[in-house]
């Protein structure tokens, strides 16, 4: 049964699509007309035309698949290590103290600096997923640690009083707490991972990549092509995030209040 809040959210989303998106396109078109040069600032129609060319090109599928595979490698590595190291850190002050400075540096370091360094170390194909890992791992690691450290101690005490077995504590107390924090972090991480990997591909001119597509678009002063690849990235991100948002909605349905 849909709650009032869900209906309101859906209504707001529909309103955004019906009013917001055309408004955005109108502003974009007016600015483009004002600039008067589609090579510098393309119109929405020019981008759509360029998008049609890209999508129907023979290597489009290969390009998108290659970039996505780097995203998945970066995300999977980040997720697995974040979970393992997060669990260890919560139980070991030594490990946590050891990792904290590294995680802080990973969070703060400018992406461009680490990208150029990794290109030198790893080359143009391995560098982008490594950059993805450097950017995403600290976010997921922090989510795991926070999820475990913010478990209500009163609930742990209740579990002690009632002699709740360890397996059921992990299943009903620890796991839901971590998943709650992790799913929020993961949903945001997908879009970010795509962005940084495409940037890394651009800098390292990785062949058969979306970043490379943007590079050549810019090199030939074809901004419509640049924006087309941006649209592809946005759509790819939305498609990847969709199952995660559905999962998060299902996991967090207990948060919905009428």
């Amino acid at each position, binding site marked *: 049964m849909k709650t009032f809040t869900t209906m309101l959210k859906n209504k707001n989303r529909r309103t955004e699509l019906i009013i917001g998106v055309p408004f955005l396109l109108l502003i974009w078109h007016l600015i483009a007309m004002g600039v008067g040069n589609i090579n510098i600032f393309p119109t929405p129609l020019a981008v759509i035309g360029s998008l049609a060319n890209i999508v129907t090109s023979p290597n489009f599928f290969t390009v998108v698949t290659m970039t996505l595979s780097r995203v998945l490698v970066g995300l999977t590595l980040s997720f697995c290590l974040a979970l393992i190291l997060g669990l260890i850190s919560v139980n070991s002050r030594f490990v946590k103290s050891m990792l904290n400075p590294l995680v802080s540096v990973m969070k703060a370091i400018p992406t461009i600096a680490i990208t150029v360094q990794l290109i030198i170390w790893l080359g143009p194909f391995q560098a982008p997923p490594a950059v993805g890992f450097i950017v995403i791992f600290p976010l997921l690691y922090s989510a795991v640690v926070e999820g475990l450290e913010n478990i209500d101690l*009163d*609930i742990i005490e209740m579990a002690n*009083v*009632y*002699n*709740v077995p360890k397996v*059921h504590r992990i299943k009903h107390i620890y796991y839901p707490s971590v998943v709650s924090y992790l799913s929020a972090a993961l949903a945001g991480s997908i879009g970010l991972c795509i962005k940084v990997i495409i940037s890394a591909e651009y800098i390292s001119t990785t062949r058969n990549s979306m970043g490379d597509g943007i590079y050549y678009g810019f090199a030939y002063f074809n901004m419509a092509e640049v924006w087309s690849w941006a649209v592809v990235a946005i759509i790819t991100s939305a498609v990847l995030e969709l199952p995660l948002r559905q999962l998060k909605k299902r996991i967090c349905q207990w948060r919905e209040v009428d």
Partner: protein
Amino acid sequence: MYKIENLNHSFNSHAVLQDINLQVSSGCIVSILGPSGCGKTTFLRIMAGIIKPNSGTLHNFDQNSSFVFQHPRLLPWNTVFDNIKLVLHDKVADSEIPTLISKALEMVELTEVADSYPLKLSGGMKQRVAIARALVFPAKLMFLDEPFQSLDFDLKQRLMRQLLPLWSEQKYTVFIVTHDIRVATAMGDIIYLLGNRPSSIIKELKNPVSRSDRLVKNGANLIEIENEVYASLSEN
């Protein structure tokens, strides 16, 4: 027989409980009454084994017991049914669980919210779920810390009318902490008054009214014992 000898406890070098001694038969319902902040909850938590006292001996308290906390302590991501089920894992046969939970929810008048999440419940409803959880747990020793504070008068009365015969029938030993004199006299076979700082037992009162007569005539039978409690608390 449950016995406590020379119990003393401090928090951060600040003495809270001093020279507590009591002796209670199995199957007895004990009310512990006292002003706010006097250490009633600390006393209950020591008896339940949650806190180790600085000194003193407790006899027969080291067994499985259920506890109704001041705040319900429900898992927000579990339904009411699953919150209660959590305490039954590996303790009763799986086939018995739905019946046990169903009976407990019926007793606290919450059958219709078995599939609801705690966020959708009022404070009183959450506390009743906590009471249901304590009732299903297979233990004959029960501790309740202000169990009825979020409940309205009628609901409180109905719940007490259900609990008293259940506890009698199943021979529960119950310790209830409350600041509500009416609850203390309606539930307790023995009423311990805590007072002074650090707290000690200033008075032990035996309830002259039988369990079956306590909640009839809107508790008119309890007037005498209530007055005795008021008088004792006023002296101190």
